Structures are given as C-alpha cells and as structure tokens.
C-alpha cells in the first residue's frame, strides 16, 4: 500500500500543478473551446457562396436559360456580368471570382441550328481544389441543359435520375464529421503538451532532484506522470463528446464503452510520445518545439482533413506511426457507424503497440539521463 500512497500524492500534485495556476487553467480551457468552434465551423472543404463572372455575348434564349439555371443553383452567391474578356481576366486574376462562364455570340443560334454550341468555363487553377468542385457544379448544370435540349428535340423528357443515398449522415452535415474528429485531436493536442512539459519543467525548476531523492521509484514517477495527462485527456474528450451530442446533435450510434475502452490505449500512446519528448528535452522550449514538431505531421498524416488513400504510396506507411490515425477510425465509427467490435480491436492493437514502444523508450531514456 505504501506505493499507492506515494503514487496518489504524485498524481494529486501533478494535477494541482496544472490546475492551480490560473494561466494554466486558461490554457487548458480557452484554446480547446476556440478550437472546437473554429475547426467545426471554419475547417470545411465544402464550397459555398461562390462568386462567378459571366461574359455573355449571346442575346438568345438559350444563353438566358443557362444563366437562369446557374443563378438558381444554391452554390453561387453572385454572378457578375462583364463586357469584355479583359475584364473577365482581371476579375479572375485578382481572385474576385473563382470561375468565369464565357458564352459566345453564336450560342443560341448554334443550338437552334443543331450545331454544337461552344461554351467556355474558365477556372482559377490557383485554388485547384475549390475550382474543381465549382467546375463540377457548372458541368452538371450544363449537362442537364444539354440533355434537356436533346430530349426536347426528340420530344420525350426522360433522363437518368441519380438518387443519392448518404449513409450515416443523410444531410452530409459537416460538423458530424469534424466534431468526432476533434474528440480525437483534442486529446492529442492537450495530452502531448501537458506531458511533454511535465518532466522538462521539473528539470528547469529544480524540483526533479527532489523527486529523485524521495522514495518514489522510477516506474512510480513515470506512472505518476502518465496518469494525470490521461485524466485531463479523458476530461477533454468527455466534454467534446457531450458537445458533439448535445450541441452539435451528432448521433452516437455505437458503444460508448468501446470508445472509452480504446481511448485508454489512445491516450497511453499520446502520453507515451509526450513523455518520450519530455525525457529527451533539457528545457521547456525544447519540449514545446518537440511536441510541435510531432504534432503537426501527426495531424496532417492522420486522415484528419484529407483521406490517407489520397497520399502517395511511399508516404502512407509513415501514417502508421500516428496514433491519431487509428483513433479517428474508432471515434468516427462509434459516433456515426456503430463500428463492429473486431474493427475497433483491429485499430486499438496498433495503439497499444505505440504506447508500449514509446513508454518503454521514455523509461529507458529517463533512466539513462539519471547517470
């Protein structure tokens, strides 16, 4: 029982050290809330409120029909009419519009005459991602018009109807995707910084020797450093889960027990990385920068914002090192898909492995540093 008394004292101390300082509390509360808001509303790859430029040199009915259909689409916010291709170019150059539609003078006449009518769509390739989506929208409208014209010629209005079915998220609400992602990301952000600083700060303040001469054993110190960030990480995850369900209305279809069960291993792996960085750094500055250096690639290569399958083959193996990668699958799955247990286990095992490796490395470094 002696070890438990010592360990308890250490855990309480770690929590107090973080929570008693008002600035520390602020750092634990302020940024996560801001991140929740900004990420869930701003970090969207949707394309809305699009401004386009129209150069219409045709006065016929078909061009008018096309313009009306474009104006009627919800994606487009404004259509600015310009009189010359120079003006069109200037708008695109200055990024006042992402796309331009150029209707030639013979557009309606050509259609009426049964000739192929030319239509030019110009897109700003600098923003290739958004431009492609806009191109998709415009093409759909044009294709529809084109099919309608062909159909009209034959006198029968018949088209293929594409029936969209959005599983798991029928209205494709972006927050349903982002908020569960953030449940995973916040634990990484907070867990990593808190752990990375924990040993470095004691080194800098000189309290580390005090710990080392106390009866605490090395593994007890390590456990004492691991548990508080896990408690804090679990706390943040819980807050985010509650916000997801009650503020953002994200359905929770899977088992919470499974989510929390695998989160233990996720947090262990995050804390393991943090502890490793902490054992490696001599100063707080190094710990901060070290955590940062891990965090950025870990986030970008996790499938958080862009799917891993879009990455080149040689890069994909690197993503296996990011704990976020596995936990994202679990957290998204549990929220929206009722993820089957075996799949959750498949993604938890790598987390357990990362946790084991990083914690072992941290313990080894930690002991070595004491020589």
């Amino acid at each position, binding site marked *: 029982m002696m070890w438990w008394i010592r360990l308890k004292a250490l855990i309480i101390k770690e929590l107090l050290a973080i929570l008693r300082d008002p600035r520390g509390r602020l750092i634990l509360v302020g940024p996560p809330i801001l991140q929740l808001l900004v990420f869930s509303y701003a970090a969207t*790859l949707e394309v809305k409120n699009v401004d386009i430029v129209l150069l219409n040199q045709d006065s016929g009915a078909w061009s008018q029909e096309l313009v009306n259909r474009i104006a009627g689409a919800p994606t487009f916010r404004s259509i600015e009419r310009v009189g010359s291709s120079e003006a069109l170019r200037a708008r695109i150059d200055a990024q006042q519009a992402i796309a331009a539609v150029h209707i030639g003078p013979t557009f309606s006449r050509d259609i009426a005459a049964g000739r192929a009518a030319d239509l030019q769509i110009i897109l700003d390739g600098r923003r290739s991602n958004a431009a492609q989506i806009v191109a998709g929208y415009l093409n759909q409208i044009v294709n529809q018009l084109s099919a309608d014209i062909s159909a009209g010629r034959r006198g029968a209005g018949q088209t293929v109807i594409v029936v969209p*079915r959005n599983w798991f998220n029928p209205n494709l609400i972006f927050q349903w995707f982002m908020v569960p992602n953030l449940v995973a990301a916040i634990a990484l952000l907070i867990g990593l910084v808190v752990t990375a600083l924990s040993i470095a700060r004691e080194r800098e303040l000189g309290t580390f020797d005090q710990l080392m001469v106390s009866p605490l054993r090395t593994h007890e110190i390590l456990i004492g450093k691991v548990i508080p960030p896990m408690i804090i990480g679990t706390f943040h995850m819980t807050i985010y889960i509650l916000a997801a369900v009650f503020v953002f209305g994200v359905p929770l279809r899977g088992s919470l027990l499974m989510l929390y069960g695998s989160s233990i291993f996720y947090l262990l792996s995050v804390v393991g990385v943090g502890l490793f960085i902490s054992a490696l750094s001599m100063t707080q500055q190094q710990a901060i920068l070290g955590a*940062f250096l891990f965090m950025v690639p870990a986030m970008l290569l996790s499938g958080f914002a862009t799917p891993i399958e879009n990455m080149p083959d040689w890069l994909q193996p690197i993503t296996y090192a990011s704990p976020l990668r596995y936990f994202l699958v679990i957290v998204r799955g549990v929220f929206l898909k009722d993820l089957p247990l075996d799949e959750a286990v498949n993604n938890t095992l790598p987390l357990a492995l990362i946790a084991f490796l990083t914690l072992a490395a941290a313990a080894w470094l930690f002991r070595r540093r004491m020589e």
Partner: protein
Amino acid sequence: MSTEALVGTKETAPPTGRARRFTALVRKESLQVIRDPSSILIAFVLPLILLVIFGYGVSLDATRTRIGLVIENATPIAQDLAASFQASRYFEVATGRDRREFEEGLILGRVRGIVVIPTNFTDVGAAGSSPQIQVIVDGSDPNTANFVQNYAQGVVGTWMAQRAAEIAMRPPPISVEQRFWFNPELASRNFLVPGSIAIVMTLVGTLLTSLVVAREWERGTMEAMMATPVTATELLAGKILPYFILGLASMSLCVLIAVFIFGVPFRGSVLALYALSASFLMPALGQGLLISAATKNQFLASQLALLSAFLPAFLLSGFLFEINSMPWIIRIVTTIVPARYLIPSLQSVFVAGDIWPMFLRSIAVMLTIGVVLFILAARSTRKRIG
C-alpha cells in the same frame, strides 16, 4: 548645476552611437540564432517537413477514390454506363453484382461510395418511368461524400449527354470547353506549397520571435539591457532585423525546394516574391513582439503564438479551406489574419505571374496590420520593469 560635469562621459552626438548599438544588437541576436539548435529547427527543419507533407502528402485531389460499382443486371446499357465510371479518372472502381458485397467496406471506410445500377435500369431512350441509379456514399466524411456524389453526377451527366446525342445522331448540343487557368494539371501541390511558405514565415516571425524575447525576460538579460543607453526602439529594431532576415532566408529555402524539387512553376518576379514576403513579416514579427512583451513567459508565449498566429494562418487564411464557405462571423475574423492576404498573392506569384493591383492591395493591408501591431508592441515594451 553640476549636471553636465557629472555626466561628462555622456554621448553628445548620438547618431554614431545609435548605429553602433543597433549593429551590436543585431550581431548578438544573429549569433544566438546560429547557436541555438531550436531556432534552426523551426526555421529550416520544420519548413522541410511541412513542404514534404504538403508537397506530397496532403492532397486535396480525390483522384483515387475507391468506390464499389454494383451492376445488378448486366444489360448492354448498364455496362455502357459502368464503362463510363471505370474510365473516370476520379474513381478506382471495384465491380460487383450485389450491394451487400460493399456494404461492410463502406462501414469500414474501405470504399467511399457504392454506385448501384439496378436491375430495372433500362434503356434511357425507352418511354415510361425515368431510370434511376443509386449512389450510396459514406456520409461520415462529408468532404469525400460530396466528391463522390458530384463526380458520380458528372459521370452520369456526361454519359447521358453523349447517349442523347448518339440517339439523336447529333453531337451534344453544348460542348463545354473547360479551362483551368494557371494550373491546368490541377496539382494541389501548386497551391499548397505557396501556402505552406506562409505558414513557415508565421512560425519564424511569430512563434520563434515570441519565444526568444520571452526568454530574455525569463533569464533576466532584458533588465541588464534596459539599464544601458539602449532605447526601446533600438531594442525592438535589433530583434526585428535578424528574424526578418531569418524569415526571408527560410522563405527562400522553401521557394528553392518548391521550384527545383517539387517542380512548382514560378511565373512571377522575384521582386514581387520578396516584396510580399517582406510585407508579411512585418505583422508576423509585430505579433511575436507583442505576445512576448505581454506574457514574458515562454510557455504562455508559445501557446498564444500557436493560437493567435499558427492556427489562423492554417485555418482562416484560405490556405486549405475556402473563406467564402465559412460562416459570416468567421469571415469577418479572417480579415485581420495577415496570411489571408499573403497566400492568394503568393499563389499568384508562383502559378499566375505578377498581378500587381492585387499584390499592392495585399501589401497595403499587411503593412497596415503590421504598423498597428508594432505600435502596440512598442507601447508594451517601454523601458520599465514591473
């Protein structure tokens, strides 16, 4: 008064003294940068990592989205449509006979969508009910889901228009000529790399600067410095110049790598590149100085720098996410994010060329934000303790 006598040693002609103090501060700061591995890490290693990730890793082009294609009844017309899907450059198609073959894959994220051409998918030209196809997507990732829906629509639309034209024995009534200016190959690298250069300069200008100034307060060197004839302006200027140069050096390295290793085109002028970067470093450095003067503590400075500089440069600058798609309140916030002005201009310098009206406007806004931040920083760095 004995005043003059008492301070007989006082410098009476300050200009040379000022110049010398300034160069001394700059030299000191530069030596420290060179000797501190963490400055090098932030200025040269992190940029490399970011460039590689953005140059190769993070691709927003959904060029290889895996979908399942279910042909419930292999009629010629169904196979014709299926061939259109298989030919699409956006999809990597696995075909099957039954949607259940792919349902588990959809749950596990192995396929992003299932296109179902049902048994009753009959000739489009035939009279009667409109034929339907189903596109089932994994809505848990709305971005990819939207891609799949849109591209599937696109494939079907194009196929339909071709069919209609074939049946009518005429070419499609409207032929669309689609032109992506500046970036015809649609490489997202071409716009992500210039954007990540802005991130890198934010890190050097704001994060690193705020850390080093906060460190001077923590270590007590600031107090010794202040008790010398150095003025607050000289102190600030002495900090700015080295990190300004470091920021530009880091930017130059990124540009060289981007152009010569990643093959990103560079169509603008070097002058525009440096004018834009230099103007951007003003608000970045001003923000760094302001943060450090306000916190005087490395940990807080780093957190504030990340929150107020790094994240906005990442999220609110149009780098990855379209500003126009954000809620209006966030759109307003983006107007004070300097990176928002730099990134489109930098992208233009790379792929479009010099568009001076746009550049000048960006430069003017960035410098204005910079001046405001500098005034605030100078006010909080008066030569006083406590």
